[in-house]
């Protein structure tokens, strides 16, 4: 099957990103802000339990938030 035939056959499934371009800034900012708050909460009590309850969510929020914020800034990674 040639690639052109595959292209024609898949006309019903155009690629849709997880977060559309218009919402990247909002989602990225919200995640980064929550990462900031959670980091602050971790800073108040640096226990092992805090890593699980604040550190892990903060890291995840920062990881995804950074990707969306970089995209929103125009560097499409």
């Amino acid at each position: 099957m040639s690639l052109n035939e595959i292209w024609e056959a898949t006309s019903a499934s155009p690629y849709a990103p997880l977060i559309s371009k218009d919402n990247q800034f909002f989602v990225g900012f919200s995640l980064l802000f929550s990462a900031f708050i959670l980091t602050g909460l971790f800073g108040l009590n640096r226990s092992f339990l805090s890593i699980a309850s604040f550190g892990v969510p903060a890291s995840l929020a920062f990881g995804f938030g950074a990707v969306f914020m970089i995209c929103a800034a125009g560097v499409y990674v």
Partner: protein
Amino acid sequence: MRPFAAIAAFSGLFSSCLLVCAESTKDFTPPQAFKNVNLVRNTNLEKGYAREIINVVVENVDSEPRSSYYLAVPTELFDKVGGLEVRDKKAPEKDRFAVDSVLVESSSNSQYFVIDFPEPLAPKAQITLGISYYILNALSPRPATIEQSEKQFLSYSFSAYTPSAYPTVTQKTKLKLPSMNVPDYTVTSGLKSGEDPERLGTTYTYGPYDTSKVAPGTNYPVTVRYEFTKPVITASLLERDLEVSHWGGNLATEERYWLRNNGSALKNHFSRVEWTVSNYQQMPSVSIRELRVPLKPGAVDPYFIDDIGNVSTSRYRPGKLPARDASLELRPRYPVFGGWNYSFRIGWNDQLSSFLRKVSGGASDSYVLKVPFIEGPKVPEGIQYEHVVVRVILPEGARNVRYEVVDKATSNGLPNTDNIKASVTPHKTFMDTLGRTALTLTVENLSDEARDAQILVSYEYSLWDSMRKPVTITAGLLTVFVAAWAIGNVDVAIKKR
């Protein structure tokens, strides 16, 4: 050490010479298995390069079926030929024929391309070939230097007898010129009865000639010199990057041009006053004054920069989805006159959804991407590209990359797939750990006719591959938290335990 190095270098030189000599064929003459019954050559000189379409009825005069037809090209033009395409004129819907080049001793007058028919041609059978190609840098400005607002003339030389490896029974050449102002053209004598060439508007017809008794390869030089008060735009290099971002839902395009105007050089210094006056009056000019780049309807965030920085003399007219094209109008920092260069880069973003589709089924997530091969300025005088590098940068972790260049039933100015060199290499840029997968396609001798051609790229890209970037950043911050906790637990107090 030196004598050894010299001997090694000499032996290297000798062995490489042997290699070349082994590949090339001395005094090569193609087997005389065919005869050109009728040949019509259409040469179009309306653009900054010569475009030739040869329609030829070929007959097998051998006693056995034959499938290799040799196309002769004068040695001095051989490296300038681009976009060579051969089709069966009577079945244009079929695929183009495979074409290879033959290496012949450089002192020979002709070089050859071998056209392989899909099925051998039976003895006495005929086939009509449609051969199309363009010749880059074949037009020379005469005079070579002119005043700033003077008219420019180009000259084109060719042979009245079409170069051929086989005897030709009848042939003619139709020249299509861009203007009525043709101060010089060769009038042939003794080739046919009556006036030669015959003129009709801007079309000059040399022939028809009865050349059944003329030996193949006979040269009858003809030169035409015609007005062409437009720039002869040549890109010595075009680098084009297409960057796919799944996270951003974006297709980023950047094109880097190294342009040159191959027209007549200026006789005197550039006069700013004369330029301003002629520009104000919108007089035709031999300089590159403005380039219009049509972009796809959804294109956004265009930029136009050169070595100095942003070039503010550009205008962007956004398009409208689904059908109205956007237009990026560029004015170079200075008018590019004959012999002058200008290099710049332009770029823009598109929604990825118009170019990428997800292939359902299969074990891994598979995607197919369809993007234009080249875009670039669309100008009536055309652009010739000497060297083009198209790079499709796929997301990090994309695997099993396959590509295809979409061929149309009519000539789209692209060479055979064999002449497009492809390689898949990693490309490292922002926030990459392994490097993105980049498919690089390299083509020599291209023209802006290839604007309509498309590349299709398919690749596999799983969910884990897409998670690589956020997970890397997450792991980074988590390491900081764990370090803060671990270091905070270290007891550094000065006291008795």
